[in-house]
Each structure stands twice: as C-alpha cells, then as structure tokens.
C-alpha cells in the first residue's frame, strides 16, 4: 500500500483516535478545510468536535491546557499549524511539560505530543518560515521527532502519542506529497527509535532530518551516477540523539556532511558533527566534517531570494564533490 506523508499523519490520527479513548486533538484550524493540509481531513466529523477541538487564537493557554489534560491522564495532541506561532507557547512546552516529571520526583508527568508544523516557502516571509527544531532538541526531557518519510510520519506520530514523555513531533509541509510503500501499522516504542540508514554507501556519509533527508537521498542518486557511493542517515529522533549509527557510518566512509534545514549557529548540523567528533578517532576521518545549513539570515519573501536561500540538491552534490576532490 502506497501512502503520502500527509496520509501517514492522517492515518496515525485515525488509528490513535479509534484505539485510544484518551487521545484527543486540540489546536487552531482543526475544523477548517485548509489549515493543516490533508493531514486531518474530516477528523472532526468522524470523531466528533469533542475530541477534535478547535480553539481561540491563544497558543499559550491551549498548549497549557494540553499539558493539564496530559497530567490528568489524557494523551492530547496539540497542533500548531505553524511553528512560528508555537513560539508563544514555549514556556508550557519547555519550562512546564519537559520538566514536570523531573521536578516532581517522578510523581506526575505530562506526556503531551506537540505537533509543530514547518510551513515555509511560497513567499511567506520571515515570520512564517521558522524551523526551530534545534531549540527543542536542546531541552532534556523533551523528545523531539522529525519524520522524513510517509511511514515514519505515521508510525512516529503514533509512537509519540503513546510515549510516556512529552514529545515534539515536527512535520514539514514540503514533504506532504512524498509517497512510500507501507505495511500495516505496528506500534513502536519511541525510546527505541533513532537514526536510520536510508541508503547504504561507502564513500561518503550524508546526514539529514525531515526535508533535508529527502534532499540527501536525491543527491545520493545523482552522485551515484558519477560513481560516488553515498550513505544517507536519517536522524528521525533529534532528542535524545543516538549517535551510534552515524558514527559507524562515518567510520566506514571517512567523510561526513550534515545537511540541516535551519540556521547554523548552535544548530542541529553542528551538533551532529560535534557528537561524531567526540566519539571517533581522528584517524577515522578522510576529510574534515562539513555542514550545509540556511544562510545566516531570516527567510526572505521575494521568490528570487527564496531561490538563493533554501538548500537545493545541487548544493549537496557539489559540496560532496568538492570535499572528495580536495
């Protein structure tokens, strides 16, 4: 069965709502035909407006309400149709939910799933483009998930909601149409999930997450045509971040480039490089590890600048070539 990434998210919702009475969904736009793409179509009709709750324009209180409901035994998914809006609710996610269990000595916990959607391009501009996954990966106590494929979009959403910890699940609208062959749903334990090799190769390790994983896969195909065998690691779970597979891959290929869809300074790409460097011996490396990120600027609007701003497959291809040709 082939499904799209958006369909994977929808299927996960349907599965959770049908099988777990403690699951409900709350957020802005949930009764709207257009707000969250095709990822929630008709859920309000099929499961009722009591379980699919559309809200006032109040990110902080609705997120806090999800935290309170989670503390009370429910498994809410709080949807932020755009990650930029969620910035108003960070206190509840980072200072409340992520610390709740620890600071109460394990007496209570707040297993919310925050669904943060990366929604950018299309000349939306600086305030409607942010991808802040690195911020959340920085926070102990908050699991951070970023699916790159339709199967993961589905299975990791289910695993996030069933996890006993607060989870930030980040999906990217640029991936909604990506299709993949999938098996029927099997519940995964999020704590067991981590980076995965999506393509094997011997010459070079490319690491991506979410949309940049797709870019890496596309680059790997092009590079294979000129005889460069690229291994692609999809990070999938950004926090806690398990380096094992990445390290093994770099030890095999000796070359590493991390491609991230957001900013450089204190971002995910640098983290992967540092995490690898701490654990390998220098002799494992054939070249200095590299990264590709957004330029150090807010997102522009004009399409001519968007074309320069966002990373393209060719950027990865030429980076890999230039490293190997050094």
């Amino acid at each position, binding site marked *: 069965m082939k499904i799209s990434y958006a369909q994977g998210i929808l299927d996960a919702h349907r599965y959770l709502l049908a099988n777990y009475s403690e699951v409900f969904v709350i957020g802005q*736009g949930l009764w709207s*035909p257009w707000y969250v793409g095709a990822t929630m179509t008709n859920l309000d009709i099929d499961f009722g407006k009591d379980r699919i709750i559309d*809200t006032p*324009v109040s990110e902080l209180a609705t997120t806090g309400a999800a935290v309170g409901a989670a503390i009370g035994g429910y498994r809410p998914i709080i949807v932020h149709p755009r990650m930029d809006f969620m910035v108003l609710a960070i206190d509840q996610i980072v200072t409340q939910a992520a610390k709740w269990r620890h600071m109460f000595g394990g007496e209570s916990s707040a297993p919310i799933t925050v669904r943060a959607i990366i929604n950018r391009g*299309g000349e939306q501009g600086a*305030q409607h483009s942010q991808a802040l996954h690195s911020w959340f990966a920085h926070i102990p106590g908050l699991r951070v998930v970023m699916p790159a494929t339709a199967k993961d979009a589905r299975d990791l959403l289910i695993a996030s909601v069933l996890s006993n910890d607060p989870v930030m699940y980040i999906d990217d609208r640029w991936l909604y149409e990506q299709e993949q062959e999938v098996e029927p749903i099997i519940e995964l334990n999020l704590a067991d999930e981590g980076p995965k090799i999506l393509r094997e190769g011997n010459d070079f390790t490319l690491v991506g997450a979410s949309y940049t994983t797709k870019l890496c896969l596309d680059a790997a195909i092009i590079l294979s045509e000129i005889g460069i065998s690229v291994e692609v690691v999809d990070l999938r779970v950004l926090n806690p971040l398990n380096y094992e597979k990445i390290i093994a891959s770099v030890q095999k290929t000796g070359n590493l480039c991390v491609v991230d869809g957001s900013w450089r300074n204190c971002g995910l790409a640098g983290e992967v490089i540092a995490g690898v460097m701490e654990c390998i011996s220098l002799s494992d490396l054939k070249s200095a590890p590299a990264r590709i990120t957004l330029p150090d600027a807010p997102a*522009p*609007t*004009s399409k001519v600048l968007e074309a*320069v701003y966002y990373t393209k497959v060719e950027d990865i291809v030429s980076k890999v070539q230039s490293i190997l040709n050094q």
Partner: protein
Amino acid sequence: MIQLAELANPAAYQHPLDISFCTKEFLLYQLESMLIIRKSEDIISENFGTGVIKCPCHLGIGQEAIAVGISTQLRKTDRVFGAHRSHAHYLALNRNSFGLFAETLGKYAGSSHGMGGSMHIIDRKNGFWGSVPIVGATVPIATGAALAAKMDGNGDIAVSYFGDGATEEGGVQESFNLAASMKLPVLFICENNLFASHLHIDLRQPTDATIRYAEAHRIKCELVDGNDVIEVSKATERAVEYIRSGFGPYYIEMVTYRWKGHVGNRDDIDVGVQRKDNLLKWKQRDPIRRLTEAMIQQHLLSSEELEILNDKIQSKLNDDWNKALDAEYPKSEALLSLVYA
C-alpha cells in the same frame, strides 16, 4: 452586559450614511480613499487568483471605511501599526498603491524593498510603522511606540489595528494593562469582523463585543459601525483628542465584515457559521455604497461624476500595477546585507 447586538446584524445598518455637517471636500476625499483601496485590493485579488502574486494576501475588501475614517484624523508623526490584513491601513495613509503592488510582487520598489510581501508593509514617512502577520504581535509594539511618543512629548499618538481574534492573544491583554496603567497615548482599534480565519467569534469567546476587555482594563472605549466612514471618523476624532490631551489610551471597536476569505481571493462560503447567507447581506452594508448613495441623495455627487472618478482611479491603478510588474527584483546581496545594521 455589552454585546454587539444590532451592529452584528448584517441586515441592519444598510441605510445611506448621515453626512450632515460634512464638507463635500471631506466626503470626496473619504470616497476616493475607499475606492483606491477597494480597487487596489481587487487587482491584488485577481492577480493572486491567477498566480502572478505568490505571497499570502489577506484582503480587507468590505472593511475600507475603518482605515479611511481613522487616517484622516491622524498626522504624519503619529505611528500606526497594522497586522496581517493591512493593505487598507497602509493605503489610507499614503495612497501608494504602486508601493503595495510592488511589495506583493516581491520587487525592490515595494514598500519593504521586496523583503516583506503583503504581510510586512511599512511607510514610515507617512506614519505607517509596520505590519506583521504574527497575530497580536504589533499591539505591544504599538504600545511601546506610544511610550516613546509620550517621552518625546510632542503629542503624537500610536495607533494599533488588530482583529477580534487578536484579543484572544495574551500579549494583547497584557498590552491593554500596560497602556492603561502607564496612561500611554495609544489608540486601540479592534476591527471586529466576527471571524478569526474560519471560526466565528461565538465559537471562540463567550460573547461578541470585545470592548468589554477595554472596560476591564479601564480604557475609555466606544463601539462603532465600522462600515460607516463618518461614524468611524467622528469616533476617531473624539479618541484622538482625548489621547493627545494626555488622558491615556482609548479603544474603539469597529464592527465590520470581510467579503473575501481569510486569505487569498476565494469567498470561503464553505467555512464558518452562516457565512454563506450573511455574506450577501453584508455586501449590502457596503461602506462605499452607503457613502455614495448619501452623496448622490444630497446632490454632492452625480452618477456621471462617480463614473469618472471610478475610471480615473482605475486607470491610475492599472498603470501602477503595470509599473510594478515591470519593476526589478531585489539583488541577492539583500539577503545578507540587511540582517545587521
């Protein structure tokens, strides 16, 4: 218990405006402004529909009377802030359709040099200090601009436009308290069009009149038919005088309705409570028609003059649009050179 009551009834308030005591010059100016805005947004709507404009555009067609009625009461050194639906706020201050068109097209000649698009427009020279699409974000900023104005001591004021939905943002409520407790010279304008994207206010708040917040924060306030440019203008005159006199903030709730969907050029009649029926009635409450009918009745305008005016504006706007189409895109250096001063 305050409620919008009849003001929210689309079948009410359809009568021609009461324009007694208004000069012809004043009325014509208001009419022209409204027509410029309406027709500019029509052009944007059309070109959004065909895909020529790519950036998200939130059209305010049907709500023109508010920005127009307010702007005539302001001076260039006042500081006006908008939000996501701010074409009218900008045009009412500067009538610079070219700057708006070029910006929606991402051109260097645009108000923000192509760096902002429809949702980030600015014209400091004419008192428009910026609009951004994070709901509620400009309300504290306008409050701070009022603090600056107060420190300047020249009697300038800040104006903060926001929607009924924005009153649900905590930062907006905080700003009301800040303005009230510091007695800041800020005019809060809530354009209550009954909707926040797809949701009617009755699904988001326990009742529909947002001035109850102003009362709670002890901010002087009024409730006004936002489709009556004369009433808007009079209320603003009262408010501006009060604020310039140093009495603190003022809140006017303008009841209105948007004809287009939340974003883009569609009607969204598939969305929300009774929108399909109400939209037709609200179109009868058209602020432009109500003014022109009154002017024609009072023989301040003839049908021919109106047609000439329409044509003149339309042809100027067509020129502006074509100029904007021809204008240059920003250079790619802009990406990095504008990050730091």
